[in-house]
């Protein structure tokens, strides 16, 4: 378990389906662990990747779709891994020669690899993808609903929603009439590029569309995980403190745009917008800022214009890429014809 935020892994769901792979890496240990006698152990569907160890501490629970299973907790049991301890100890004699190996690899290299795949897909399809990050309660979902209502006649829009639990946000988005997919991170505190890759496969966003990825409400962890997006958009609401950019600098440093939301409430608060913006730019001098209200629509036109400009830039970039690929194909065909 992450000692800072309680983040863990192993129970990610994309649209209610369990996700296997790097995010659920601990599941690989489960094959060697005898099934627990606890309840629910026999009801895990075939191919699911839950690691049902630790019946003593495990929490059985029921999913909305009727599945029931047992979750592990994050430290291994002596009993379950006794064989491994013994074998490691046996290898560990002081006389074994050791050697040094240079690695020089980024810890997030695997995530960044998945992010690069997502980004390539976005480039090829001309999709403008944004990673929306904020504290819980900053008004992300309300802002998305207003944005979608304003743009859905002009642009194709798809949404990926990230939350620890429930599909409430995806349902709110679907009510606006656009496609939305919920990722439940379970114990996890952030979306990663692997989860988003799976979501893209399910969601299949259209060419030239706007993809809005609403990350888990958390101003700390999502800062480090590239999802393949064009940029991160951080939402700060005026009901929070002006000094949040200083308290959580990594997120404001990683974002390209800050939306200062709920400005309709400013007359009732002592929040100093200029100070908040100055703090944010202290952390990230290049940060763009748009003050707006998702409730009244004040300032939203500037945000919508920013989105339209981003989408057109993506389409133009795709057109240029396609034209250069077509030229390359023509060159190769000409060379083949000359050779033949």
């Amino acid at each position: 378990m992450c000692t800072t935020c309680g983040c863990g892994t192993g129970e990610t769901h994309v649209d209610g389906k369990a996700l296997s792979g790097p995010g659920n890496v601990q599941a690989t240990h489960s094959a060697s662990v005898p099934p627990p006698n606890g309840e629910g152990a026999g009801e895990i569907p075939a191919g699911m990747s839950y690691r049902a160890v630790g019946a003593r501490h495990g929490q059985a629970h029921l999913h909305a779709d009727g599945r029931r299973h047992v979750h592990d907790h994050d430290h291994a049991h002596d009993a379950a891994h006794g064989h491994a301890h013994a074998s490691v100890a046996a290898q560990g004699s002081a006389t074994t020669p050791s050697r040094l190996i240079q690695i020089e690899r980024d810890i997030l290299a695997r995530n960044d690899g998945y992010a690069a795949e997502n980004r390539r897909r976005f480039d090829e399809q001309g999709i403008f993808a944004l990673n929306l990050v904020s504290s819980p309660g900053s008004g992300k979902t309300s802002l998305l609903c207003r944005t979608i209502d304003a743009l859905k006649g002009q642009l194709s829009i798809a949404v990926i929603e990230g939350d620890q639990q429930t599909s409430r946000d995806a349902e709110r988005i679907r009510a606006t009439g656009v496609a939305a997919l919920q990722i439940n991170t379970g114990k996890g505190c952030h979306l990663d590029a692997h989860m988003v890759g799976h979501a893209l496969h399910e969601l299949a966003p259209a060419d030239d569309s706007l993809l809005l990825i609403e990350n888990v409400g958390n101003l700390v962890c999502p800062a480090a995980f590239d999802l393949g997006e064009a940029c991160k958009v951080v939402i700060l609401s005026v009901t929070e403190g002006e000094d949040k950019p200083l308290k959580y600098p990594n997120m404001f440093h990683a974002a390209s745009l800050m939306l200062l939301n709920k400005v309709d409430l400013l007359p009732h608060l002592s929040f100093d917008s200029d100070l908040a913006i100055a703090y944010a730019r202290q952390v990230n001098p290049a940060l763009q800022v748009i003050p707006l209200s998702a409730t009244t629509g004040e300032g939203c036109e500037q945000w919508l214009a920013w989105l339209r400009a981003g989408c057109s830039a993506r389409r133009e970039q795709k057109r240029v890429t396609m034209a250069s690929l077509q030229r390359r194909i023509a060159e190769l065909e000409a060379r083949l014809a000359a050779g033949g």
Partner: protein
Amino acid sequence: MHEMSLAMGVLQIVEDAARAQSFQRVRLVQLEIGALAAVEPEAMRFCFDAVSRGTLAEGAILEVIEVAGQGLCFNCNMTVPLAALYDPCPACGGHPVQATGGTEMRVKELEVE
């Protein structure tokens, strides 16, 4: 911050290296963590200890080399030391300072048998 995911990333890199370079056990894992990367070395050790149990890295020492933060001061047009992302320039006391170093998180070296 998200040290559990990072610890699993470290373990994956170690396991990839074990397949490529044929070793059976890891004695020491050396990491380079930037001062501005928002990673707590103690939390990282705790999480790595948890994820490495029952693997070839069980019991390995996790050594963390802290890389100092650096930034470009827009006023002085100079690279200056930076302890936190929001700190002023130590030379002129002004803002903004754009972080240019100390955000890395890398596996640098392994000692293996």
